[in-house]
């Protein structure tokens, strides 16, 4: 089937290679309506919650802040500000746990809540219809909106690229098991999501939008369908349930039959994709002036007594979330931020909920068995069968173990989306994705080192050149000075003064005479000594 515009418009759903069907377990959390999580006593807000540079901190320790007040500001770069999740006092600014798989610390602003939850006055755009595109983008940037689907790319930055677009795709697929945050949001806030989509269409000057939902969410499909009657520019697309159909590249393939070029962006093929949560946040930011203060987080797993979807303020420690939802921990408990396929485990519960946190999963060993010992690869090829990127995972694994970085590049390691399908099916339980991540980090590291070495080499050469130049200059200066002196002397002699050369000769003669005299005296002394002994 060719990817011509008519076929796309007719609603054809393509397919993508590979993919898996892990147990979905969405019923654990998707039956409860969205609830507000009670406020915590303190919040730790990492200043960097998106991909890009952090802003500059504009609050001091001891300062009182209101909910929604910006804590950082961004300059001309591609950063995003973060905002106070509630009113209270800034009690610390410094390194603290952030939501990152490494568990490494980064700068965190700690706010002790005053419990009043007073909001700073919102600053909505007065007249959306006449507002300029730049104003809208600035509003989104000041609201701190990053892609809520997982990557955390600043939304305004994504929208700022002006290229001809065929479709805006709103991703409500949510293919990862357990997670139902987007599902519940679509069921309960369909109109706001579509309002946000409408705004996104205007900002991107895109003619039409496709809203994609996996067919395992009939309620969300019904809710969105009902709301769609007011929006003729949008169409609903129901995609079959298969992991990872919600991956950006895979969803594009499903809906349009196109492939994002390697190392390219969807915009290169006339598409742009946003998550339903992002669309919701866009609508709230533009219509109501609300900065991104909270998001829907699925709290689930058999070790949580009150699973469900909660509005959680950004910066809320996971500990608070889990206490409210009454978790019980077993020996060697895993607490996973994100879903079971792509999430990462937390080293402790001080980690805060951030813009990209869509799920907190506290599984029992029975439901998600811990990884077994890695066995040798038997080259069964099950991984290649399920790889949605059509890579050869086992080949990559051998190359990664051998640290053959050229080979890894040839086998397109960087086209791996780390979906984990290969590791899911591996009968030898090889943590394949882990090997790829490590290899990717190493390749990036090598590239960084190479770039640094290049700079060092340039600086070294520049310095050597400078030293050479300085030496040459110095010699030249000395030569000139000597010449000048000679000339001055010559002129002095000509003028009738003593030739300094004569004076030198005279001094040498004097020294010789003195030496001769000394010698004679010594000899005389030694003779008298000899007599006395």
């Amino acid at each position, binding site marked *: 089937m060719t990817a011509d515009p008519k076929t796309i418009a007719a609603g054809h759903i393509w397919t993508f290679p590979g993919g898996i069907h892990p147990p979905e377990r969405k019923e654990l959390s998707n039956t409860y309506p969205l609830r507000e999580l009670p406020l915590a006593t303190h919040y730790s807000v990492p200043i960097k919650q998106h991909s890009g540079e952090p802003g500059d901190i504009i609050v001091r320790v001891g300062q009182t802040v209101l909910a929604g007040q910006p804590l950082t500001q961004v300059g001309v770069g591609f950063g995003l500000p973060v905002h106070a999740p509630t009113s209270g006092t800034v009690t610390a600014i410094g390194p603290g746990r952030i939501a990152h798989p490494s568990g490494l610390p980064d700068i965190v602003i700690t706010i002790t809540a005053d419990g009043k939850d007073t909001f700073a006055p919102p600053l909505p755009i007065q007249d959306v219809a006449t507002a300029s595109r730049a104003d809208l983008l600035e509003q989104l940037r000041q609201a701190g909106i990053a892609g809520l689907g997982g990557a955390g790319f600043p939304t305004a930055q994504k929208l700022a690229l002006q290229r001809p677009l065929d479709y805006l795709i709103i991703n409500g697929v949510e293919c990862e098991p357990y997670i139902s945050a987007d599902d519940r949001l679509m069921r309960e806030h369909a109109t706001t999501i579509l309002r946000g989509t409408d705004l996104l269409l205007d900002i991107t000057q895109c003619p039409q939008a496709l809203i994609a939902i996996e067919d395992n969410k009939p309620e969300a499909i019904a809710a969105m369908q009902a709301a769609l009657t007011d929006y003729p520019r949008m169409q609903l697309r129901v995609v079959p349930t298969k992991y990872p159909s919600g991956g950006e590249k895979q969803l594009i393939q499903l809906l349009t039959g196109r492939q994002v070029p390697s190392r390219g962006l969807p915009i290169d093929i006339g598409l742009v994709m946003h998550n339903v949560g992002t669309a919701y946040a866009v609508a709230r930011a533009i219509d109501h002036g609300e900065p991104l203060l909270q998001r829907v987080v699925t709290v689930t797993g058999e070790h949580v007594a009150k699973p469900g979807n909660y509005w959680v303020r950004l910066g809320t420690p996971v500990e608070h979330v889990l206490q409210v939802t009454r978790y019980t921990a077993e020996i060697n408990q895993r607490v996973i931020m994100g879903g*079971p*396929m792509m999430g990462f485990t937390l080293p402790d519960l001080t980690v805060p909920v951030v813009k990209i946190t869509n799920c907190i999963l506290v599984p029992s060993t029975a439901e998600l068995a811990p990884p077994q010992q890695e*066995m040798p*690869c038997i*080259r069964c*090829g099950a991984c290649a069968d399920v790889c949605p990127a059509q890579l*050869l995972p086992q080949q990559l694994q051998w190359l990664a173990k051998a640290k053959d970085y050229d080979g890894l590049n040839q086998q397109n390691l960087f086209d791996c989306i780390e979906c984990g399908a290969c590791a*899911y099916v591996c009968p*030898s339980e090889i943590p394949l994705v882990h090997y790829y991540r490590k290899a990717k980090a190493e390749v990036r590291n090598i590239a960084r080192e190479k770039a640094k070495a290049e700079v060092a080499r340039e600086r070294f050469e520049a310095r050597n050149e400078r030293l050479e130049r300085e030496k040459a200059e110095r010699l030249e200066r000395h030569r000139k000075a000597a010449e000048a002196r000679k000339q001055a002397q010559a002129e002095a002699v000509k003028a009738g003064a003593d030739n300094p050369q004569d004076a030198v000769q005279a001094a040498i003669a004097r020294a010789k005479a003195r030496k001769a005299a000394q010698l004679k005296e010594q000899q005389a002394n030694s003779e008298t000594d000899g007599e006395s002994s």
Partner: protein
Amino acid sequence: MSFTIATSPHTHQRRTTQQVMRWVYLCMVPGVAALTYFFGWGVWLQMLLALITAIFTEAACMWLRGRSARFAWRDHTAIVTALLLAVSIPAYAPWWIIVIGTSFSIVVVKHVYGGVGQNLFNPAMAGYVLLLISFPVQMTSWPVPQSLGQYTINFADSVSLVGSGYTQSGYNMEQLRTGIDGATMATPLDSMKTDLSRSLTPTEALAKPIFNDIAGVGWMWVNIAFLLGGLALIYLKIISWHIPGGLLLGLAVPSILISLFAPGQAIGLSVHLLSGATMLGAFFIATDPVTAATSNRGRLYFGLLIGFLTFVIRTWGGYPDGVAFAVLLANMCVPVIDKYTQPIAYGHGGRS
């Protein structure tokens, strides 16, 4: 208590190598049952000997390599190798045949190359070819299907035959292979090959008692039984259809062509498909993941190559059956097949 740090994905399809291998040998049950029904208990003795040898040699290899034997036992690949070799060789071959073959398979073909997952050649088939070349007499002395033989072989006879080469009443293998008509009976493919080389037509060759069924007494049912087991493997998603499909196609197409263009000179389609080691090879041997091609397209070509080579060896080669040689030859081609059948990665200009 502390939290556990683990790497994503945190969920796994619980199908370990051990389970895969267990399914493989469970699906051999119909084939083994058919072998038992037609040829007596010998196959069980061979399997027992092969298993014991495999377990001990594997442990010895792991010990020499300074690793834990339990680690190697756990994946059950040695069991599958041993069982495949045991059902491939004549049911009443002397005990040392299977011991030598299994030891070679495990020690040389598997561990010398670096253990499970590292071997270039299919261990069972490499072991089989070693035995076939070294001990041609023992390796071609297939017993007569029990319905055609003069003598019935009970369990005690089986033990005695495998252990000493004689039944309890003193018959040796050569005598046992004599049919009711007093002539030494060969396997269907062997008989066919000999007759065709004597310029008999296939119809004349098929007139022998061994061909009382369509494709050889007993052999046909053994093949059908392995086919059933193999279909179960496909149904259970242990193997994909590509290798067996390719193999059967690679064997069937040239045999149809040759019977169309040169009728009366070659083995027919039904004998090709339902005799010898065709089904065992197609579903159980060629599908060994370690030594097969990895992509589905590659697997198809790999199967086609084995099928075609089997056809060539059976038709023009010196041996009656050629599955083992074909598998080994195709094993050698795997790196090339893999290189040229690599799928185009997402975003590299492929079409969806």
